[in-house]
């Protein structure tokens, strides 16, 4: 029975120009973000392949032979290999997918090929999420899915007007949305990844690094990207206390500060704090295990640990946005003990580097006084030395500290902290460099503190006997406004600032505040919706320990209900009787109540004239209704006003 050609089967239906246009439009929409990242020649090649396909349809020439398409595929793959030296990373893989979408289109002859090319479009949409998952990306996804759906609808109904097909596509997506939301919330989430990811999967994340060379932070300071957001349970700390601790750098080679992963310690909460801050942080992925916390951490989030130098570390690099709760305190009792080996490491300096700095420090040491006196003296030296704070520090050579302190006298926070630490070590005071973020703006819209990469900062901690490790911010000492009023205030007027740091663009900042407040909600509720948040949400609905059994049961219950509702809706729409027919039925019922029953074979004309004869008192209205019904049902007058009039007449009919 199925041997014959089946006119609805997609293999039998050829792609028309309209089908092709829609398919190309849909694929074009989903390709745009990839094309912007692709090397120009690949974008051009893909466009050429699209154009070629159109040429074939417009000129009714046969599609290129298979060997030719395979040849083009090889050219594209070769090009990608030359560009990336591999075909299997994330970027080359995604670019090849983009290129192959064009090739699939080129060899698409029937609706079946076209539909598979359209399904390929879904992969193009999802691969874009590897790069960005912002709100605009989500909107672009909706546009892309709509275009693909409209394409598929167009395949199913090639002769239908375009507007009707678009309406159907919209209706379908409208009906799909509740199920999609339900699935999103209730589908049991598992923690990925299921297998290893390509090497370059997480490249391109910005953030602090585990080394600090002169000029590194000033580059980061130009980035407006968000590092993390913190929402405090109560009042946030004052500006001068907003020191978010990150990696601690111990080892100096005369130019670059580095660290090596040290051992972790059993966490002991600081005692007798003066103030306690409870807050939660949503940390952007930065591909390191560092969790940032306000100085001084008084608790460690579950699954995290504390390093010996007081840094909070996650078990694995942060590769997706994470949210964690923190408690920090200020003014706790000092932990005055430190092991000799650690103190020895905090005094080590490279031999032969920065001789002038060493000489200066030894001069201070020789002058006598306590460690605290030396710290004060060094800070005074920096404050009075006419140092300039700049985003564009001069390049420094091998003796970077010497050059900064005595020659160029212009630098960014890494220069100040690096020099200060070297001075301390040279004078025999144990010191270490701490990098992290200093500052953070409260978003007036949702009262959440935003810390950006431009808040990246470096400072020093010195070990003073009896007081333990003490934070000293040499940058703040020489440039107090850096800490109090932010980067923009500390920089000289003549320097070019990142756009959003400029004072005059108040409205722009306000718009950004609104946007970021929305984005924060998006990050937490959409992008951050994982196994934990799902558990929390289920708990708030009263479902304890929601495992996948329970979730699946609930999910399918709801899905079943929803399908039933959708079916009922469609059936109701179908069963809804025609208003004309309904009015006529009412009319017949009224006549039947007076004894004039319509027989099955009787047409409306015969019936009304018979009724008019039987009920002469109502002759006129009966005949009028009959004539109107015939005109509406069988004639040209099937218009809403005529229908309404018929209903009115029937309702008003009073049979004597």
């Amino acid at each position, binding site marked *: 029975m199925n041997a014959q050609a089946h006119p609805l089967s997609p293999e039998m239906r050829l792609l028309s120009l309209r089908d092709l246009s829609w398919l190309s439009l849909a694929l074009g929409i989903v390709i745009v973000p990839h094309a912007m990242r692709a090397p120009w020649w690949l974008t051009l090649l893909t466009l050429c392949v699209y154009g070629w396909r159109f040429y074939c349809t417009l000129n009714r020439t046969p599609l290129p032979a298979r060997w030719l398409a395979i040849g083009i595929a090889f050219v594209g793959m070769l090009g990608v290999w030359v560009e990336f030296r591999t075909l299997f990373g994330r970027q080359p893989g995604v670019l090849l997918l983009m290129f192959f979408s064009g090739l699939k289109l080129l060899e698409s002859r029937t609706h079946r090929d076209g539909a598979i090319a359209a399904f390929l479009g*879904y*992969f193009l949409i999802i691969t874009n999420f590897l790069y960005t998952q912002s709100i605009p990306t989500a909107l672009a996804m909706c546009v892309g899915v709509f275009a693909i759906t409209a394409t598929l609808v167009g395949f199913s109904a090639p002769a239908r007007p375009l507007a009707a097909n678009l309406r159907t596509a919209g209706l379908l997506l409208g009906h*799909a949305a509740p199920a999609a939301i339900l*699935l999103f919330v209730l589908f049991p989430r598992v923690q990925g990844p299921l297998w290893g990811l390509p090497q370059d999967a997480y490249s391109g994340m910005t953030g602090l690094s585990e080394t600090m060379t002169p000029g590194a932070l000033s580059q980061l300071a130009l980035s407006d990207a968000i590092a993390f957001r913190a929402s405090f349970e109560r009042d946030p700390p004052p500006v001068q206390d907003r020191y978010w601790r990150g990696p601690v750098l111990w080892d100096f080679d005369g130019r670059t500060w580095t660290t090596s992963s040290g051992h972790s310690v059993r966490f002991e909460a600081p005692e007798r704090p003066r103030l306690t801050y409870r807050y939660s942080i949503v940390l952007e992925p930065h591909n390191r295990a560092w969790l940032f916390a306000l100085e001084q951490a008084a608790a460690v989030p579950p699954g995290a640990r504390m390093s010996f130098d007081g840094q909070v570390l996650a078990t694995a690099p942060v590769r997706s946005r994470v949210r964690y709760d923190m408690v920090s305190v200020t003014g706790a009792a000092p932990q005055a003990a430190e092991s000799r080996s650690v103190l020895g490491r905090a005094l080590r300096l490279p031999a032969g580097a920065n001789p002038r700095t060493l000489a200066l420090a030894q001069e201070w040491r020789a002058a006598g006084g306590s460690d605290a006196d030396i710290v004060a003296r060094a800070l005074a030296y920096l404050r009075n030395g006419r140092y300039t704070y700049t985003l564009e520090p001069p390049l420094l050579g091998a003796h970077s500290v010497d050059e900064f302190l005595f020659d160029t006298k212009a630098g960014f926070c890494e220069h100040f902290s690096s020099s200060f630490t070297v001075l301390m070590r040279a004078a025999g005071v144990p010191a270490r460099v701490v990098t992290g973020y200093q500052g953070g703006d409260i978003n007036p819209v949702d009262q959440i503190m935003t810390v950006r990469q431009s808040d990246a900062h470096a400072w020093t901690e010195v070990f003073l006997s009896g007081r333990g490790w003490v934070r000293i911010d040499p940058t703040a000492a020489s440039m107090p406004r850096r800490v109090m009023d932010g980067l923009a205030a500390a920089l000289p007027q003549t320097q070019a600032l990142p756009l959003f740091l400029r004072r005059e663009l108040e409205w722009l900042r306000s718009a950004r505040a609104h946007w970021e407040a929305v984005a924060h909600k998006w990050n937490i509720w959409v992008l951050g919706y994982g196994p934990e948040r799902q558990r929390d949400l289920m708990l708030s609905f009263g479902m304890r320990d929601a495992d996948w059994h329970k979730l699946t049961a609930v999910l399918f219950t709801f899905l079943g209900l929803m399908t039933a509702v959708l079916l009922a809706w469609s059936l109701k729409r179908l069963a809804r009787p025609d208003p004309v027919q309904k009015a006529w039925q009412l009319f017949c019922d009224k006549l039947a109540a007076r004894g004039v029953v319509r027989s099955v074979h009787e047409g409306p004309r015969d019936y009304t004239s018979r009724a008019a004869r039987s009920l002469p008192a109502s002759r006129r209205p009966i005949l009028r209704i009959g004539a109107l019904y015939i005109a509406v049902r069988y004639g040209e007058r099937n218009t809403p006003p005529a229908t309404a009039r018929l209903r009115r007449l029937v309702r008003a009919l009073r049979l004597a």
Partner: protein
Amino acid sequence: MIGALLERNPKFANWLYGFTPPERGTVLLVHRRVYIVPAQLGWFFVLTLFILLIGSINYALSLGFALTFLLGGLALAGMVHTARNLARMAVSAGRAEPVFAGETAQFRLYLEARAGFDRPSILVRHVRSGAQMVLDVPAAGLAEVVLGVPAERRGWLPLGRVMLETRFPLGIFRAWSYLEPDARCLVYPRPERSALPAPSAESAKGTLRSPTPGNDDYAGLRAYQLSDSPRHVAWKAVARSEDMLTKQFTGEAAAELWLEWALLPAALDAETRLSRLTGWVLEAERSGVHYGLRLPGAEIAPARGEAHRAACLQALALHGVADA
């Protein structure tokens, strides 16, 4: 295999398809009669969804989940919409003009979408013959489909089972429904061309004076009438004047020819006799004589014209058919 099973168990088939044939009047395809399964593309779609889901889990892509689930919802909505495209369709059968055996009967079906939305891309297929057509049914409107079913034997040709199928709107589901409207087409016997018979004994008694037309004596011209055969039109005379004229032959007006079953050689079987009689009816009508038909158990008095011809042919078509 399933088809053969259903063929052997018509009751089971009727239960499965939700109706008992033939269905009189307008057939309303209630929801229970609409079947739906994923089409081949649907399996591709499922595969796509699966890969998207695995990718979303592996890369922890929240928007990937959103996309996957949106497409999952789309599949669900597509299923309802595909079923909806057939459900509550009203199908009625129109009149099928009689044909001769060996020709193709043209069955007319009317598809009516009574609800306020259109039903695009509906395939109507005649199961037995495979005759098929794809059409769009407009919103609250009617669409006509003509199914050409080969008529092989004389008698009543029932339409039989018809399948309605659709894959609208996404092509990932296939919904179909069977129905068997109460429509039939009258099939005349296959006409056998042969010369008209010699007058029978009865005709020789005086009822028939004209043997075969064309050998007649030319009697003159008269005004053309619509029922006149074109071969009797005096074309030469027409060329000279504006009026259509018909050649008149002596005795034609009164000519009566009995076409009789009994006249045919006894060696012929019934079907061949009917075929020959059918050919005679056609020939007699064409030549314009008055002719009557005598079959065992039926007799049609001599006359001429379309209605008479149809009556004769129907009598021949239904000769010996139980359900006449």
